[in-house]
């Protein structure tokens, strides 16, 4: 027996199916029906416990191919009816065995739908997964001991130790792209390298000078965990780079770029985590079904959180006009924008998929093309 306890005292019981021990952090939920391994290895989930809304998790085991980083970043997996089935071709281990090996607690048999409905109403909050023998009082103490996500710099915890160079995996040699690693997913590096890019991966503590020293053709800002507002030091360096290079930002990278040009970010009530959110490209009218994983978002023109109307609104930034390019049709929050003068474009969602739909892969082609031009 084991249980989930939330900051506000809500409790949900289940069976312990992962590593022994407890885990605390922010409890979030992901509504994708497949791609559990990609999710837990996505550095953006650092310090978070993932509630999977799909009941059966682990159906096809785990495999090296599905790693989004070198390790599991999620603190725990909360599931309705986990599976440890490794029979699937290409699976190298059972999901639960793998969680145990990697010392990640997991709980199954939880009424995850009830849990999600609670978070939906109360907003995502701190919580933990605890063995039955840990009393609720101790559990509660452990939970409040966790720092809240707001103002938390987690990029430092997941960034590359030193500069790493990655060759292209394509035949044709493409541009050299400097990538600041705030917790990059391998699907992003893979997508760029497959399009001919040579990557210079810098720690998030890098400086604008260090980045320029590699004479890159463009700058890539990527996903990562935590509050963009806590990355002032990085935002300052990015601010120096904006304008001098074409920039493409994804997720946290999108938020960093926006802060760098003077826009604000805020914390969403319970975030976007899943593989089915419709995002409209306001320039083409095309709607993409997107992979999402973020708890913070960028404020629109005039500082509003949601935008009515489907016009590519423009508003002023420190680097010229920003043009709203992408809008989330679920809650009408900002999903992407362009800074024509600064040759920068960013999206809040995950064009690299991994997991999720491939609808937005073309954004990488456009980035590479933009660098060329």
């Amino acid at each position, binding site marked *: 027996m084991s249980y989930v306890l939330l900051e506000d005292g809500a*409790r*949900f*019981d*289940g069976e312990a199916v992962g590593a022994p021990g407890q885990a605390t952090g922010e409890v979030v*939920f992901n*509504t*994708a*029906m*497949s*791609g559990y391994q*990609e999710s837990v290895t996505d550095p953006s989930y650092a310090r978070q416990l993932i509630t999977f*809304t*799909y*009941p*059966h998790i682990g*159906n*096809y085991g785990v*495999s090296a*191919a*599905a790693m989004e980083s070198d390790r599991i970043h999620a603190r725990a997996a909360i599931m*309705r*009816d986990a*599976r440890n*089935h490794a*029979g*699937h*071709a*290409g*699976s190298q281990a059972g999901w639960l065995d793998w969680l145990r090996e990697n010392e990640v607690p997991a709980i199954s*048999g*939880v*009424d*995850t*739908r*009830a849990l*999600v*409905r609670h978070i*939906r109403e109360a907003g995502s909050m701190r919580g933990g997964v605890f063995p039955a023998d840990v009393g609720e009082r101790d559990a509660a103490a452990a939970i409040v001991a966790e720092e809240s996500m707001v103002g938390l710099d987690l990029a430092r915890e997941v960034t590359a130790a030193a500069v790493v160079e990655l060759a292209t995996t394509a035949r044709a040699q493409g541009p050299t792209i400097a990538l600041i690693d705030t917790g990059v997913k391998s699907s992003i590096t893979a997508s760029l390298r497959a399009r001919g890019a040579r990557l210079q991966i810098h720690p998030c503590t890098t400086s604008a000078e260090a980045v320029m020293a590699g004479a890159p053709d463009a700058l890539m800002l990527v996903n990562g965990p935590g509050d963009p507002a806590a990355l002032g030091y990085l935002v300052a360096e990015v601010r120096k780079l904006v304008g001098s290079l074409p920039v493409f930002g994804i997720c946290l990278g999108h938020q960093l770029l926006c802060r760098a040009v003077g826009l604000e970010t805020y914390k969403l009530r319970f975030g976007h985590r*899943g*593989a*089915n*959110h*419709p995002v*409209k490209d306001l320039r083409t*009218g*095309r*709607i993409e*079904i997107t992979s999402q994983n973020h708890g913070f978002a960028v404020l629109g023109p005039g500082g509003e959180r949601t935008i009515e109307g489907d016009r590519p609104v423009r508003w002023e930034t420190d680097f010229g006009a920003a043009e709203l390019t992408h809008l989330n*049709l*679920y809650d009408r929050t900002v999903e992407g924008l362009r800074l024509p003068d600064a040759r920068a474009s960013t999206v809040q969602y995950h064009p690299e*998929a991994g*997991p*999720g*739909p*491939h609808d937005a892969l073309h954004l990488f082609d456009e980035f590479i093309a933009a660098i060329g031009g």
Partner: protein
Amino acid sequence: MPRREDIHRIMILGSGPIVIGQAAEFDYSGAQACKVLAEEGYEVILVNSNPATIMTDPEFATATYIEPLLPGPVAQIIARERPDALLPTLGGQTALNLAKALHEDGTLERYGVELIGADYEAIRRAEDRDLFRETMVAAGLRVPKSAIATSVEQALAVSDQIGLPAIVRPAFTLGGQGGGIARTREEYGRIVAGGIAASPIGQVLIEESVLGWGEFELEVMRDRNDNVVIVCSIENVDPMGVHTGDSVTVAPQQTLPDSVYQLLRDQAIAVIRAVGVETGGANVQFAVEPRSGEIVVIEMNPRVSRSSALASKATGFPIAKIAARLAVGYALEEISNDITRATPASFEPTIDYVVVKWPRFAFEKFEGVDAGLTTHMKSVGEAMAIGRTFAQAFLKAMRSRELDVTPALDIPLEELLGRLAQPGASRYDELLEALRRGATIEQLHERTSIDPWFLHELAAIAADPQAPFAGVRSFKSVDTCAAEFAATTPYHYSAWERPGPDGAARHEVIRGDRPCVVILGSGPNRIGQGIEFDYCCVHAAMTVRASGRDAVMINCNPETVSTDYDTSDRLYFEPLTLEDVLAVIELERPEGVIVQFGGQTPLRLAAGLVSAGVRLLGTSVDAIDAAEDRGRFGELLRRLGYQAPPYATAGTVEEALAAAGQVGFPLLVRPSYVLGGRAMEIVYSLEDLAGYLGRSNAHAQGREIYLDHFLENAIEVDVDALCDGTDVVIGGIMQHVEEAGIHSGDSACVLPPHSLGDEMLERIREQTRGIALELGVVGLINVQFAVVQARAAAELFVIEANPRASRTVPFVSKAVGLPLAKLACRLMLGESLASLELPSDPMSGGYVAVKEAVLPFNRFFGADSLLGPEMRSTGEVMGVARDFPTAFAKAQAAAGSALPQSGTVFVTVTDADKAAGAGLAAQLHDLGFRIVATSGTAAAIERMGVPVTTLRKVAEGSPHVVDAIAGGHVDLVINTPTGSGARSDGWEIRRAAVTRGIPCITTLSGGQAAARAIRAAREGQAAVISLQELHGGARPAGGRNAAPALPESAAAETEAKVVSALELKRGAA
């Protein structure tokens, strides 16, 4: 540009009668589309030959035509209604093919009708297997290798490049009939030869086999902006080789990693774009090699389908509704998701539960058929279940099947394993049993190729079937978004979860405080209990809502309108077992429960519900019992002084044989517990009887055997009536075309009766009234009579009474223009007949309505197409005209066996029928037909001075009658079986006719009707007429080219035909 302003009138084609492969799902889809288009302010012109559909209720369209779905009649309708557009994607294969034909014969162009949803080219690219293959290859997708052959030699030549096993598909045969899977060279030769013979153009498609690969379906939607979403993925637990319609399927897909699933998603999108479906839904089928992950495209259906109905029910995303809006110009983002209201339809549903669909088979009704599951569909219905785990959903679906015959599993393990190698109807019962007996996953995977993930789930279930139901039953909601957003649509299912902190279940149901009434549905469609009952349940829901109460629906059939979350105030997608139903009732605390409309399924629960303290609305359980218990019913008839055929009941073979004598041969024997005439037979002698008792274990389980004296050459009559306990109103009296002995569900019938005479009709009304009042019926009652022409006067016998909605309620309602089920429901809610103020003239002014049954023989190779007391039809059609023959001809055409206008008639009848048969032959001769017959019959015909050619009997060796039929030298077969039941000779003949698709009439009465119908058809094309005209319902204003009012003469006839008016007045008096 949301809504299209350049079109005003839209024609929708239904899918016609329920047949295997095209069932109620198209009523669900079509009804949704009609509603939406009406909401959007369009005028809808609906054509569907199936009266037992909600979509053909007059209020669903501006003009509703119950006419044959054939180019001729539909062209006539187009000519008088002048629609601007035709939406062909909602009526299954039937509607697509018809739309294709109307394009090809120039009708659409002539009247300037635009195809919307899918255009001609898209339909061709999807439907023409060759063109489809080219299109896929052009789009860079892989399809199985294939070749076309018109001779066995050709086939053998390509066999190496295709390899074995190979899939053989004859071109243009009904439901892939004549095709199959060739595993050996011998089989290959044989099946190809058979396929070429079966194909009217002598051509077969030979396809590379991907047997054993995983089978997956994706439901795709595309809008005019080329935005595409995947509504749902469906995995077939049965791998490739078992038709998706016969497979146990699960949503969402369970076994593919995200990376592979995304490839399927990409390909599905590529397919819908390549085929060019501009707007609407499509179903794309894939095969995935489990080890390499290699993907091939199997087919795509550019329309709503069985799977899209399933996907809609599985996710809460109403595909047909949205497809209809897309077709008239809206984009996905402009349509709101009516479950969350807050979000647009341009998203992909995500679900937090598991859905399992289970096919329902009916092989027990088709003696001697090949019951193996293969590449063409054989199931007659399906049940769906929702659970929070696979095991919950699987077991709920399993108990939703309501099997009549439980699979025999008490055989050695080896034998079980042997059986499993060939997919069959009871495959999963066998798998579970094998697992219980210690079979290993490897052993089972080897034999079935079922993905180990599922086999592990089954193993767990076998080990402890109760485990999945640990915890408390908690009613959750279907919300399309895994609870990410608040949902408003009350669509629920039960899951078993850990209770909340207070120890109570965490229900999501918002009950409200309005009183509610629970309506029990009819479960999976099966022969004998089909869409007619769902129709009645939907009407009950409408009526309950109209009465200011909440309608609560419980059903488990994903095909139906009743399981559309729009139909009731709260929908519970649950099995119809006492336990599951009581759980809902406990939560809902209804005013009462309605069991009268769902056929036998709810009736079976009635007693249990009452003893659990539940209040039933309408007819009491005791009354139901009084009607169903032979002893009590016999006593009741005696009290009333009505005649019933002599009968006896016996507990043992001995008793049966003894009783036979005093009941008197011929006998109609059957087990006591059957429905739809299961295992019912007519026996003419003690030997026959002994034989029957030996064969059918009728007396098994200590059940009683019923023996009725069989009334020969009796006219069967069906009556549907309303009763409130004090008054009775006759809804309609139907005279069967075939004589008693042919199950009421299988025989054609005509309304009003055409040859019974007022005196007899009055007796029938009198006795119906007497029985209804004596039973104390509140609601509907159906009484079946047999009229026997005794020398002096005609005698009337009561065959049975069913105090519930019958199969014929929708037909009668449409024919007389009175919604019987709704009226019955109002009575059950406490109103009186007097207060209903029924219209004085419900019956179609001077019109005759004929119902014809549609039989599935072309699906069941080896089945005898002979009609009998065991019901075997899957669906029905209706034909309306000024006179019986024309209506009958329409019904025949609609049923797919259009009568020939000329050519050769083959006649072979029993000795008893010789004289009459000869007379019939003479009539057909006068109509210009060439007559051929077997020697005996030929002699009788010659005696009437009618030229006739004699054909050899099968026994006399080739070339014989069967060769002639198979060779296409016969256009119509009239064959009555010899009474003794020795049917083997006729069997071959009927089989050949069915295979060739030639109308085959097995009763003289049917033959007579056919002859009259052919003559009538000669006199010119039958006029088409809409229900709204038929029943004088005002046509909504604004209709351009409003159809002409009925001619004076019609009005005059209306005066003359007051039968039904009187019926009602007398009834109410």
